[in-house]
């Protein structure tokens, strides 16, 4: 009587959720792919062509956008994990006031990305709190440009602020799985703070670190609202450029090329992650 065998009803049940997702996402992916080669084009006659790919790959702007988005994804994912890891360690040891503190740190998780961008934008604006404070302390003589800066530090900071609790939750879960005995044993054998940190906590929490980095990278790489509010004027992020390409220049086919590049990059990163995760598992 074990309900383990798969039946046609199970497949139907599976289809209700997975089918819904596949229907829309499948449509989206295939349409983007076909459109990038000129098929099902809205603005032109539907015919196979490589012109769109040529146009995008030869222009300077899309490549700048690609590098900018990659940079944002990488810096945000590394930055968030670097900030989150010590906090996760702090929360690992129980103590007074941890409960309420845990709730407070989780607040940004429930603040929408656009609102988070706006909240931080108030602080780092030209005459925002950070610049005003630094000026009052006589540390700087002219306000720093942190919002819409050329490099994109503003975007990275907003990404870290918004996604810190998300990464924190995942890293904390993987830290919680480490047994105290293991750490005590290492300490007894003479491991100092740093070697416990780098040779015990970091490797043992690696699966959580990897998955949170990958999710962070995907979010920051494909982000539209945060870069469009706080990002540099040039280069635009991939998602922003794709939107401009489609709605402002009406080059839907070239926008589709950008879409394919975004999707392929995302999948490549996930593939690299799964290989890395296997590698980490094999070694431990």
């Amino acid at each position, binding site marked *: *009587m074990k309900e383990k065998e798969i039946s046609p009803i199970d497949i139907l049940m599976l289809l209700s959720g997975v089918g819904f997702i596949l229907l829309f996402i499948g449509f989206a992916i295939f349409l983007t792919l076909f459109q990038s080669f000129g098929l099902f084009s809205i603005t032109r006659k539907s015919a196979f062509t490589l012109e769109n790919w040529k146009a995008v790959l030869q222009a300077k702007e899309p490549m700048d956008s690609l590098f900018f988005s990659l940079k944002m994804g990488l810096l945000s994912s590394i930055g968030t994990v670097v900030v989150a890891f010590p906090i996760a360690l702090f929360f690992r040891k129980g103590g007074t006031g941890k409960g309420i503190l845990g709730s407070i740190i989780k607040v940004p998780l429930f603040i929408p990305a656009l609102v988070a961008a706006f909240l931080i934008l108030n602080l780092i604006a030209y005459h925002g709190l950070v610049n005003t404070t630094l000026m009052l302390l006589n540390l700087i003589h002219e306000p720093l440009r942190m919002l819409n800066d050329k490099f994109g530090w503003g975007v990275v900071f907003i990404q870290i602020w918004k996604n810190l609790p998300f990464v924190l939750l995942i890293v904390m879960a993987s830290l919680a799985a480490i047994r105290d005995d293991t750490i005590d044993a290492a300490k007894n054998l003479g491991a100092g703070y740093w070697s416990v940190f780098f040779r015990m906590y970091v490797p043992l929490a690696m699966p959580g670190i990897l998955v949170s980095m990958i999710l962070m990278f995907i979010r920051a790489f494909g982000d539209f609202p945060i870069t469009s509010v706080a990002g540099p004027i040039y280069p635009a992020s991939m998602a922003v450029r794709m939107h401009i390409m489609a709605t402002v220049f009406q080059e839907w086919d070239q926008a589709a090329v950008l879409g394919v590049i975004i999707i392929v990059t995302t999948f490549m990163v996930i593939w690299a992650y799964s290989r890395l995760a296997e590698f980490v598992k094999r070694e431990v």
Partner: protein
Amino acid sequence: MASTDSKVKIPLHLIQARRMRHFYLLLMIFFMIVLILWVGIPILMTVMWSLVDPKNPWSYPNVFPPSFSLAQWKYVFDYTDIRRALRTSYSLAPLSVLLSLVLSLPTSYVLGRKKIPGKKLLMLVVLLPIIIPGMVVALSLSRVFYAFGLSQTFFGLVLAHTLMSIPYMIRVMTTSFQAIPQDVIDAAENLGANTFVKIRDIFLPMIRPGLLAGMIFAFTVSIEEFNLTFIIGTPTLMTIPTILYTFLGYNFIRTNASVVALLMMTPNIIMLFIAERFLKSDYLAASLGKM
């Protein structure tokens, strides 16, 4: 006796240990203050911006606004589309939560309880809507939606929001279905429970926390969904995020944006604190900790 001697020397390592403890306590207090400021200051600044008195504007040399008033709140409610946006947002969210619940319950049951080939791949497929960047999905879906007459319609937005929230729903509920011990189900079957009794007395009570967690995530996802709403709904249907975007874009009005930002995040934060009380384990980490 050493213990009665008041001039007994405390060993150096004990003093050092005590100092270390004090140092650790100080460090912890410092850390707590930093954390509270980290989250608190941005929110406090926004609250202040939303209360700026138009008669006494808050400009550069002032660290605090010179006087407070509710004029900005009144302005936003009287002269912008915020009422309509609030109505749209808060009628979209429950409907999309309901739809994603109905669609994901059977799927999560099969994914959580049955042995099916390619389960790992299916779990990844489920994540596709949040893996593929929203703008890519939005721009390509806008054509599909247009073809089916769904763009600029309320029902189209319900479908779009469901698409974005269903990954969380399926992931969270799959983990809760997995957590049900097979013994309990076997025991119920041996005692003659039929499918209805099993659902009522075993499945529903045991997945209830996961169900609630999934619903809360789905609700917040719908409230903050931007990309798809922006492409498919604007300008006919405005939600709170798209209205905030207009305040942050062409006509940047910090005070109005503050009001809208507060309107958008306050219910979410309240929900977080309510959820904290009855959600004991972390469903987000449990469901997204593996890809």
